[in-house]
């Protein structure tokens, strides 16, 4: 029981660790580019979590295979999280581009991306 619980849940702990790494980057780093990298790590951990939830034992990818007979849900992993994350990856790339655009315009105006210096110069 104990071994089974660890074997079934260690993936969630690793994903939580990745999420905490991203959150640490966003909270503690003073450079805005590093904050953006932290946000990307955070997003990646969320995507990994969805893909982990979608998996099913003794099942294959969600493309119907004629040799498996009728479309039985026990034979295919859950297609819904894959669909959601497919769009989320592309959207995360685009929003990261928006983030970099904002950082570039901040750098053009204030000449720095360090948070403390930026707050001083904004006064």
């Amino acid at each position, binding site marked *: 029981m104990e071994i*089974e619980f660890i074997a*079934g849940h260690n993936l969630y702990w690793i994903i939580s660790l990745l999420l905490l790494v991203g959150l640490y980057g966003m909270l*503690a780093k003073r450079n805005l580019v590093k904050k953006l990298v932290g946000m990307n790590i955070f997003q990646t951990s969320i995507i990994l979590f969805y893909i982990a939830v*979608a998996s*099913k034992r*003794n099942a294959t990818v969600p493309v119907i295979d004629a040799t498996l007979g009728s479309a039985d849900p026990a034979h295919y992993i859950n297609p819904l999280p894959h669909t959601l994350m*497919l*769009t989320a990856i592309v959207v995360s790339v685009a929003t990261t581009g928006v983030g970099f655009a904002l950082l570039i315009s901040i750098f053009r105006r204030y000449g720095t991306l360090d948070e403390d210096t930026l707050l001083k110069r904004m006064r």
Partner: protein
Amino acid sequence: MRKISLIALVLFGALLLYASSGLPGHGDPDGPSHRERSRVGSPVAAAHYIRHAQGDAASPNIVTVVLADYRGFDTLGETIVVLTAGLVCTLILRRSP
């Protein structure tokens, strides 16, 4: 400030650990999102998609059918989001000649 954020991180990590103990095990075929019927008896979307995707859209790839057919409006929203992100980059960075 740094100390406060570290304490908040540790507390949040403990909360995540506690929450993960309530999740179904990795690959458990009886997980709530894999069942045919939810706990209150309503049909679950994923099983319905797997059963009916090929009959509804003549396409074996279930992910494509869910993306473009069952959830086409959602995908339209995502496309508009991507397009808006591109427009915002242009508006922020391109200088008018």
